[in-house]
């Protein structure tokens, strides 16, 4: 199987985010990066498919040159090859999807895996957009994935914890979430192999963004709260405040 996993380099989720001086991007000072959380489930899904059906797992990323670090982490987990489309800009999903789709077209692919959403832009859109651009079926938010006879059976986590089952013809795009698998850690052999694996970098040539950020602002400050009391004795007072002051019940 030719498996492609698209991953994103994103600020770690413990990062404090402040608008930069331009008022449109975030200030990268003091921010650390990692593979965006849900992309780890996509990497693991790709490796599991390879282990079962044979083939190769290729990592594809659009990002700055520094993203080769995250891509090598994926290789160390068990992926085989990687391509970086280099761009330093914070593109939107539509620009990224077009650049990724153009690259994927030039690579053999039976299945293209994504994390269902990034932890920074949180558009949960890139995978489905790539599928549309390539004319492929897409199933998003997968919690189960099995491939047999040129078909993928995918369970998607829908509203209220319901699971919808899809059966789609390969090639297909699947976006992955927590519950699909348990992403492995890289072992020493993998880390050594990753050091030796070349990560070719080509300019992303990303087209213009579909939506542009006019302004990035901090969230509005919340009003100072109050401690209603201690222990079960405070329950009645809280119930009264929720009805009479906050008017939410």
């Amino acid at each position: 199987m030719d498996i492609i996993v698209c991953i994103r380099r994103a600020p770690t989720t413990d990062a404090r985010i402040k608008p930069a001086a331009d008022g449109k991007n975030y200030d990268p000072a003091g921010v650390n990066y990692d593979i965006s959380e849900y992309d780890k489930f996509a990497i693991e899904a790709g490796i599991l498919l390879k282990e079962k059906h044979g083939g190769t797992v290729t990592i594809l990323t659009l990002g700055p040159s520094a993203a080769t670090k995250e891509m090598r982490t994926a290789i160390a987990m068990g992926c085989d090859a990687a391509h970086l489309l280099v761009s330093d800009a914070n593109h939107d999903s539509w620009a990224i999807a077009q650049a990724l789709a153009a690259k994927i077209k030039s690579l053999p692919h039976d299945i293209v895996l994504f994390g269902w959403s990034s932890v920074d832009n949180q558009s949960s859109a890139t995978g489905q957009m790539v599928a549309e651009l390539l004319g492929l079926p897409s199933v998003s938010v997968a919690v189960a994935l099995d491939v047999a006879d040129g078909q993928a059976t995918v369970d998607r986590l829908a509203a209220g914890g319901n699971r919808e089952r899809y059966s789609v013809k390969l090639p297909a795009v699947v976006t992955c979430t927590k519950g699909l698998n348990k992403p492995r850690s890289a072992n020493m052999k993998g880390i050594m192999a990753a050091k030796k694996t070349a990560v070719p970098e080509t300019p992303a040539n990303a087209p213009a963004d579909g939506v542009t950020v006019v302004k990035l602002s901090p969230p509005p400050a919340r009003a100072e709260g109050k401690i209603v009391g201690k222990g079960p004795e405070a329950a009645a007072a809280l119930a009264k405040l929720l009805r009479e002051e906050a008017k939410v019940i």
Partner: protein
Amino acid sequence: MSDVLVFVEFSDGAATKAGLQALGAGSTLAKALGGKAIALVIGNSAGELGKHGADRVLVAGGDAVGSYSPDGFARIVAEQAKATNAAAVLASATPMGKDFFPRAAAIAGCGLAADCIELDAEGGKPRAVRPVFAGKALATVEAPGTLWATLRPNVFAEVNAGGSAAPETVPVTFGPGDLKAVVKEIVAGVKGKLDVAEAEIVVSGGRGLKDPAGEGKQNWANLEALAEALGAATGASRAVVDAGWRPHGEQVGQTGKTVSPKLYIACAISGAIQHLAGMSGSKVIVAINKDENAPIFKLADYGIVGTVEDVLPALTAALKETLSS
């Protein structure tokens, strides 16, 4: 180009709350742009969407939309966006809207502003505000052409005093055989169970509730009872989900769901930055924690310092009494 097209989501034959909220937002935006709000219903009969702010109601039916399909629904919305020359195309940021709207926008050659919490017109152009980094920052966005956006549930108001609009049937240009992905069956879950991202009230539990398979059993039963008394959905912190105590669909935070209910009750959740980001958009936040220095109290509107063992049963009883009075 001043009309607003709104995909109105249905469930079990009726428009969903989130769907009507999107229509309400679309109606307000259309007025600001000097255009019409056009509701689009797929695979259901239109109901009375005129009352909820629709100036026109388009209905697409037939075999091809008998079951939900992301590529099928996307194609219909994209075709109607073109036919109506809409300035903005909206849907709810629900599991369904998040699934197929990116495909629809891509057919139209547009980007997508996902999970928006504000929508208005600036110089005759639609503009949206959406949280990024789970709400650690807010991005104001616009599009060079049509603005495609999904709207977060519980943020926009329904319109209930509108007029009437006769349903207009729109053609479906493909058959069931053309669809790439169709939902075959629902394999698990409870039909109609409220999603934590769509609920008006969320009661969330943290590690302090302890293992539900062991000493925490009663605590979780108490949390469920509190949620039931309020008609709330249950949520959970990452620690609880990672421990396998609750299903991952309930996880609230930057690596789970970002929620904006009118009331969020955090029980024994200390308040990691990722969790706080995911629920800080809630209208009112209540925290119950035995540690009075827990970071969650900095964000909470109301706090009770105490153990969940003591406070949860007392709070459920007190709320039941208030609700029945």
